[in-house]
């Protein structure tokens, strides 16, 4: 746990606090840890991304903090109430969008769904004007009397988020909000969530959609095999890699066989990753962790020049968020 420095508590109001959360499952008397000692916090107005591969434990964390699953040890405090003992009180100020099509009745219209789900909450009668405004905001105003089954998957997800926003909750929990969406719908949801970001709600979003996480979250909690790998802000995560990665592109103008070059350079410079090639252009990523690797990069440049291979580009790599997370998950950083 805590590969990177954890973000310090800065004394703001804490909406969600998870300490030492663990959950075990028994399958034919064999114990498996679904979650191991997970701890993190979500502050007022903060957007935290819960990131991890499929089966990492993201949904289990959400199920534990909403009372859908009983955890074995640890402590969850949601809106100052203990979970699961004071679950009903805690959930009054939480809006949840669960994974998949699990949040709407398909045989009810958009408005009927909104009214039904708002009636389950401790709030005054929903104001028609604010519902109309919300529907306009999510571009569903013209479909308010349409049955949900007739809406596209993206529109259904927008409706889920609209209902969550209408709850006026302190914390919005989103589990895989872009799962199963096509590119356009995915883009619309990301745009909508970016708009929400400007409001005062805190958001906990669990996803393995890197582009979504990258574009909306302030802080990332990375989960791997039920354990916590990282709890840090996105900027720090990116900076860590920005300072250590360089990309080199070379042109193979003499048709030198690729295999000979690869064999040659990997035997000399083990830390070099051959990232991509096409017929004429090869790309190399050089990860510089220490002085010797930096020297390797210089030597590699010399190698190409000596072999009459032109270096087309040598630049500091702007790390792709997906790449960063992939490397963290493959424990590259720990090594």
């Amino acid at each position: 746990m805590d590969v990177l420095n954890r973000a310090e508590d800065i004394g703001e109001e804490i909406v969600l606090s998870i300490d030492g959360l663990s959950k075990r499952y028994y399958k034919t008397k064999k114990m498996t840890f679904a979650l191991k000692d997970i701890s993190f916090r979500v502050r007022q107005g903060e957007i935290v991304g819960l990131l991890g591969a499929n089966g990492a434990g993201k949904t289990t964390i959400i199920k534990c903090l909403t009372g859908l699953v009983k955890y074995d040890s640890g402590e969850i405090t949601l809106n100052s109430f203990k979970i699961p003992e004071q679950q009903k009180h805690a959930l009054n100020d939480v809006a949840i969008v669960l994974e998949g099509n699990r949040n709407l009745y398909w045989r009810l219209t958009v408005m009927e769904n909104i009214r039904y789900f708002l009636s389950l909450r401790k709030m005054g009668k929903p104001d028609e004007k604010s519902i109309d405004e919300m529907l306009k905001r999510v571009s569903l105003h013209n479909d308010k009397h349409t049955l949900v089954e007739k809406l596209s998957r993206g529109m259904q997800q927008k409706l889920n988020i609209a209902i969550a926003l209408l709850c006026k909750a302190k914390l919005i929990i989103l589990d895989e909000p872009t799962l199963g969406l096509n590119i356009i719908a995915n883009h619309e949801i990301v745009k909508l969530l970016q708009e929400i970001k400007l409001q005062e709600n805190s958001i906990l979003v669990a996803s393995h959609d890197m582009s979504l996480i990258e574009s909306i979250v302030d802080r990332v909690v990375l989960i791997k095999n039920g354990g916590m790998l990282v709890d840090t802000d996105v900027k720090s995560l990116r900076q860590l890699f920005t300072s250590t990665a360089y990309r080199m592109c070379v042109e193979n103008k003499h048709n030198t066989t690729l295999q000979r070059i690869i064999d040659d350079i990997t035997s000399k410079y083990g830390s070099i990753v051959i990232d991509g090639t096409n017929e004429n252009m090869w790309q190399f990523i050089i990860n510089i962790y220490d002085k010797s690797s930096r020297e390797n990069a210089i030597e590699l440049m010399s190698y190409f020049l000596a072999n009459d291979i032109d270096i087309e580009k040598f630049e500091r790599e702007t790390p792709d968020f997906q790449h960063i997370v992939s490397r963290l998950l493959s424990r590259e950083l720990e090594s």
Partner: protein
Amino acid sequence: MRYVRFFIFSFYKELLNKIRYPINTVFGIIGWWVIFLLLFLGINIFGPSLFEGDGQVNLIKGYILWFMVMANLQEISDFISEETKIGTISFLFVQPIGFSWIVFAKVINKFIIISLELVIILFAIMLSIDKYVVFNKLYVVVVLVSMLSIWGWALILGGISLLIQKIDSIVSIISITFSLIAVIPKEKFYLKIIFPFSYGMDLIYSIDANMYSIMQLIRTREFIMGTISSLAILLFGLFVFSLCKKTAIRKGIIGYY
């Protein structure tokens, strides 16, 4: 206030479901219509041996009560199975109003709707064939007391369905058991009192035979014992449902299908 608002909207949602599945609703009404019509016309093909007494009127009363028992008995398990199938059950579990209240509102609203449908169809048939059956007002009391134990049984079945999702076979066995127990004379099987249909039918026959007033009825040993046993079954049902809910949460199987 929010409970009242939710209760009203839940009722509205039940009505909407009737409208949104029109073929099912229409065929349901046609089915009842045909069965009641045949009963009113004196065609006793619906197992009169199951019901005490041999009169046509008793048969109609018996059928109404049997129908109420069966429709409400599987209400909670059907609701849980349906919500699990469409995937909304987890979402209902995380609502601040509480899942138990959602189930309560569903059960009461469904009972009201079924009762209204029955009353409307019965009166429509009686008017259309100009043949009338007199229903004693005290039957309402009997039905309400019977409902307490039906809901108790329904909570037990609902709890089991939270754990094993599909319980159609169990419901079928219980339905048959209830029907068969009804034909055993109460003198031979005193535990009949815990089976809502049997208890209700016996009480209806007692009301008819003795022409009780409400005050006389509530003082009868049969009524007192029946009410106590119905309340006990309801409490036991609540206990089992709560236990099954906790087990399902502990095992993390809410929403599994």
